[in-house]
């Protein structure tokens, strides 16, 4: 009787189906971590460039599909914005660690963000940086002018708003400009790697993390120490940015690619040196009550 056989489980292994039904097609669905070509260990060495290309090729198709499926709520609902905060604590820590340790060949976006750009990191890192710069600047000025008779301590609260404007403008407008530029070049030259606007915002936000301990250490009133800190911070975050965006412009005209990378690093330098100059008084100069008077005095003295 067929009743007993009907009750047994059927094996649906590959061999069984292909043997039982030669006309059937079997589809292999692999996760991104299963195929050997996706292991990050292969991305080092001289063959790293080609492997990066392969990674970029396959990943971009899959993750664009996934990205399209994820953000399906219309933009006026709350759920749409919740998809940008879909990170756990350990993921945020991993991304911060990735921005602090740039390893050649490992692309920050591909490794840490590719599946899931978030807005939590950029927003709160910028907020912390704003207050870190304003508070450290105030504290450093207080310590430098401590012994002077004519110095009256003021909390300089106005500088918080100025710092907030600078940092948030940098963290949002520069990615916007860069994204627009990359889209424009993409329409002219077929690039293999392309980033969405949120991924660029994410990279910029997490790359600013190194400036938080740097701002705190800038309290030390030694010019040499401050400039060494600037070099270190610029080296780390600049290299994270350069290594992220090099694959995106590599296909382009050599000069345009180099100019893009140089501009990115230059703007980053401008930000750090500008913050150091504006919020932190120079340690050797005395008799200067406020930081805004200092440039005028040095210009007057130089004439």
């Amino acid at each position: 009787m067929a009743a007993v056989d009907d009750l047994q489980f059927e094996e649906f292994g590959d061999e069984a189906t292909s043997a039982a039904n030669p006309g059937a097609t079997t589809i292999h669905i692999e996760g991104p971590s299963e195929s050997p070509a996706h292991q990050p260990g292969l991305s080092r060495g001289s063959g790293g460039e080609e492997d990066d290309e392969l990674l970029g090729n396959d990943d971009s198709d899959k993750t664009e599909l996934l990205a399209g499926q994820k953000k399906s709520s219309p933009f006026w609902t709350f759920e749409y914005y919740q998809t940008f905060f879909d990170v756990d604590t350990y993921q945020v820590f991993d991304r911060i660690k990735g921005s602090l340790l740039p390893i050649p060949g490992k692309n920050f976006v591909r490794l840490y963000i590719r599946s899931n750009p978030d807005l939590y990191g950029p927003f709160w890192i910028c907020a912390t940086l704003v207050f870190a710069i304003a508070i450290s600047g105030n504290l450093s000025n207080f310590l430098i002018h401590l012994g002077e008779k004519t110095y009256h301590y003021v909390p300089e609260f106005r500088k918080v708003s100025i710092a907030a404007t600078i940092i948030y403008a940098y963290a949002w407008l520069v990615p916007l400009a860069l994204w627009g530029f990359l889209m424009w070049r993409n329409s002219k030259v077929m690039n293999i790697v392309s980033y969405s606007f949120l991924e660029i915002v994410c990279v910029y936000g997490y790359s600013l993390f190194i400036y938080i301990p740097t701002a705190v250490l800038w309290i030390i009133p030694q010019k040499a120490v401050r400039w060494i800190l600037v070099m270190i911070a610029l080296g780390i975050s600049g290299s994270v940015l350069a290594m992220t965006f090099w694959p995106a412009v590599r296909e382009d005209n050599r000069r345009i690619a180099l100019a893009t990378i140089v501009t990115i690093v230059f703007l980053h330098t401008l930000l750090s040196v500008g913050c150091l100059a504006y919020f932190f008084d120079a340690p050797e100069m005395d008799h200067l009550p406020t930081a805004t008077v200092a440039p005028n005095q040095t210009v007057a003295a130089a004439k």
Partner: protein
Amino acid sequence: MAEAAESSGDPGTTSPRPLFAGLSDISISQDIPVEGEITIPMRSHIREFDSSTLNESVQNTIMRDLKAVGKKFMHVLYPRKSNTLLRDWDLWGPLILCVTLALMLQRSSIDSEKDGGPQFAEVFVIVWFGAVTITLNSKLLGGNISFFQSLCVLGYCILPLTVAMLVCRLVLLAEPGPINFVVRFFVVIVMFAWSIVASTAFLADSQPPNRKALAIYPVFLFYFVISWMILTFTP
């Protein structure tokens, strides 16, 4: 005297007897009294809400709200895991605390031209927009707390820092010097820790477990900035 006729099926069938069939045989005689009292506990409450809050004296109304605010102050000062702040939230306490803090922190008119401390409006904006941003952040991360409940908790937990501000103001009346600063620093640090502990006790349970640190860090930053403003206040 009620007597119901028994409704039965045709005699001769073997159908089972219906439930409670025997009840119809009982007749209620007059010597078994059936009487009693039914009291509804909520009745007096409902009557009170109907009309009496309109007719009560103004003092009663104000004292009731003030007592609610005071009760919540006690809960903040001795933080235990309780639901009082969340269940009956109100925004009177945060408003009183914020206005007090902003009035005490604003810069005097003497140095309003130079770079000085914050203005009243700046403190107000920092407190309220900071609380709104933290609440939005916690909701976006998936917390299940309502918007005003979170504002209520964050506002009430400014109470230790307002107390620190009062103490600092009193200490600043004495002569300035390093001891003055050390005392103020110590007071502000203790009250800052108290605020963090109080708000964590109320807010931590409403966050998803793997994102607690992400939701608590902005609270830490918020109270840190307020503590900084209190510590650097110079009259």
